[in-house]
């Protein structure tokens, strides 16, 4: 089934120069395996095509059940020259949590409580 990331993961983003960076975290190991498979550089590049002018970088961290994502050229040259309200890229993580992936409905956070 199609699942938005906010249902199964949490995320924080920040800035360094013209780079927005995101940590995406699974709440459990089973979900992490799905994130690692489905959240690819290609999918990320497509999702962030409107803001990332440079390449997307991605590192899986099995020990943290996390993906580290870096969007190069995503902040209009950097926070201090950006015209955006979100010049610091603090909400890029929220934008990521809106991305939908293919995931089994049996994941722990998707099962009825």
């Amino acid at each position, binding site marked *: 089934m199609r699942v938005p990331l906010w249902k199964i993961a*949490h995320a*924080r983003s920040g800035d360094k120069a013209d780079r927005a*960076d995101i940590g995406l975290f699974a709440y459990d190991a089973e979900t992490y395996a799905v994130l690692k498979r489905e959240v690819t550089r290609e999918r990320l590049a497509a999702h962030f095509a409107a803001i990332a002018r440079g390449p997307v970088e991605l590192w899986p*961290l099995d020990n943290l*059940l*996390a993906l580290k994502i870096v969007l190069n050229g995503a902040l209009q*040259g950097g926070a*201090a020259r950006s015209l955006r*309200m979100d010049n610091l890229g603090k909400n890029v993580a929220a934008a990521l949590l*809106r991305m939908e992936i293919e995931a089994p409905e049996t994941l722990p956070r998707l099962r009825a409580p």
Partner: protein
Amino acid sequence: MKSVRVGAGLGFYGDSWRPVRASIERGGVKYIASDHLSELTLAILQKDRQKDAAAGYARDGVPMLAELWPFAAKHGVKFVLNAGGLNPQGAREAIARAFRDKGWKARIATVTGDSVAERIDELRAAGEPLAHMDTGADIAAVRERLLFASAYLGAQPIAAALAQGADIVLTGRVADAALSLGPIAHELGWKWDQWERLAGGLTVGHLLECSGQGSGGNFGSAGEWAQIPDYAHLGYPVAEVYEDGSALVTKPPGTGGRVSFDTLRQQLLYEVHDPHAYVSPDVVLDMGSLRFDDQGGDRVGIRGAGGAARPAKLKIVAGYHDGWMGQGIIGFAWPEAYAKCEKSAEIIRTLVAERGWPVEDIEVEYIGYNSLLGAHADPAFRDQLNECFLRMTIRTQDRRVADAYGRLFPWLGLSGPPYIGSMKGVQPAKELLGIWPTLVKRELIESKVRIEVESV
């Protein structure tokens, strides 16, 4: 095993020091590591210094110490803070003045040598091109527009200042995590080539450098953020660091917030690029081997930091003038709130074009609809908004244009679409800054680092 406890101070210029008192009184800390400088703060301080040569330091260091020092002195707690900004001696003078007024005694150290704004040509002559780290561009392109340039120093001068008996260590630009790593390495007697231990200390410093973000603040999530207890009294993170480089991260008892695997790993990866090579002046950290042990009760054990030798070059971040921003904001209520914002944007575009102003970029954002999510806003409710604000900004090299641009907006109140709100004055031109990150041989910087310790 020997250990030391360090607590987080501020996480940025303007952060609150109120939660630090709990760390001092109930957190068992021996040091507070306080970060007052974001990547951009030096630009603000440079403007202060242009107006007043005695300024140029983060002003919140003085009231913070004025309020917390009585508790710190009682509990034997020392402060390491980068509030020196571009003028650590100026900051020292201001703090010394405040202490003398109250009759307090302290040994205050300053660490200087990070600022290289006056040394650009000298460094270039010494064979450092100072090319842009990411783009490779020649610094000549911005040389005449540079406003500040500071190297990120490491933990060694901080540890040296503590070894000389300092109670308060005031620095300018240092790696944020060095504010913690300095006292940790000093207390635990680490050598500067014990890479794995240093990597453990750096991990702790990174978890502490953003104050409340290390203890449940800004917990990026849908729904889960609401489970963080007692935000109003959120305690800042505290770390007990052991001789072998492992640590226990917690927060003072009786405070709000949460220290858990979830909240700590969000901070661990925050503003990190390659997690297998997190470069600091003192050590290169590999986060891939870290092990977190969430013991419950706001206690998380951390071990296994990977450490590789420190880099041969230090990072400099310089800032340069990069034009002006003009800004206008106007709000509309139902009906057709969004459509009226859109119409206003069209009107402003027409006025700008008719004036032939030299405008390089126009950014149109709708507050209440897409000003934070941008292209990822969901258009489903766009046309049913109860209210919406247009925020429209321009980039121009001409300051007068940026000022005049803001003055276009009030006129819309009587001559534009209906049901307007919140015309809270005209927004003046705002200076825009480009950031120039570059690298320099560390010897060229370290040979100029000075540590001075004086008693007040």
